């Protein structure tokens, strides 16, 4: 690859950035809601990376929409299917996390993670 600023490189770097930002928020932030958002960001980052693995330079979407569009001109459809599944799973986990946070707030009145973080040896 000659140039650093190509479509694939930008996408890969963006996905790494999202994953790292998401994980950083999860490890260092004190507010439960922000941690849930951090998980969501990290999951989005991994999804972007997964989709990007299917990209083949110069090819188009894997749908036989036009007459005469051949399979050899298409990108890889499998990562797109994987990401579909992964997004839905991520949604499920986030919804559940938010429900837990709401109930926890109702019971304890605080969103601060310091009470639950750390091992109670």
């Amino acid at each position, binding site marked *: *690859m000659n140039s650093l600023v190509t479509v*694939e*490189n930008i996408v*890969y*770097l963006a996905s*790494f950035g999202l*994953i*790292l930002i998401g*994980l*950083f928020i999860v*490890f*260092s932030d004190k507010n439960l809601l922000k941690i849930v958002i951090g998980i969501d960001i990290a999951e989005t980052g991994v999804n972007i990376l997964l989709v990007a693995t*299917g*990209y*083949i*330079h*110069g090819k188009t*979407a*894997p*749908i*036989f*929409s036009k007459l005469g569009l051949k*399979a*050899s001109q*298409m990108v*890889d*459809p*499998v*990562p*797109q*299917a*994987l990401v*579909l*599944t992964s997004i*839905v*799973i991520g*949604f*499920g*986990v986030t*919804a*559940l996390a*938010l*429900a*837990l946070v*709401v*109930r926890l707030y*109702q019971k304890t009145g605080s969103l601060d993670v310091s009470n639950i973080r750390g091992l109670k040896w």
Partner: protein
Amino acid sequence: MRRVISLVLILGFGFYLVTVIGKIAFPSSGEQKGSVGVAIVNNAAEQTGAANAVTSVVVLYRGFDTLGEVTVLFLAALGLSLLMRGERFIAAKIFDESFILKTGSFLLFPFITLFGLYIIVHGHLTPGGGFPGGVIIATGFFIVIMTSDIVRLRENLVSLLEGLAGLTFIGLGIVGLFGTKGSFLANFMGKGVFNTLLSAGIIPFIYAAIGVKVGSELTGAVGSMFLSPYGREENE
């Protein structure tokens, strides 16, 4: 202190990530990948009869994953109803929404539902399918639930639709298992004419089941979150 340590660890991990993936990612772009997906897309049109290769992957080649995904959604809706259900289900509204909001949502509802149905039904021809279509239909329901004060959410109907749709999905698969093809989720219906609505065997039916399931599940999930007594500070 925790922030500094986390930052250092994350940056180290990031550097490691970039160098490792950099070495393997860059060479593979630009040439024909020898991957399973390429083999699939070369054969997808004749083997499944669906114009949308991603759909044939989602429903047939990787249909088992889709079954698992549908189960995860089911779990999420179940968890939400378990956690957010209080002693009584609020049917009355707390705020009085404006007239525009209320009427507008009622007017939009049929169009949104129609659009969602279109997306579901054409899943094997255009991008979309059961999942986005179901979400769109659910969105139509959301805006009515959130703004109207005369519509109530029937829990039982939602659960019934959910369960039946899920059983339909498994049922269609079981027909493949015990029928002629001998494996779960095999495509036992004819392939039809390519690029028309009635093509691609069981794909439209499975996507329809998924669309119903996703729509009813999301409606139920948002319903239990929005109408629960636990999210409100003004209440208990």
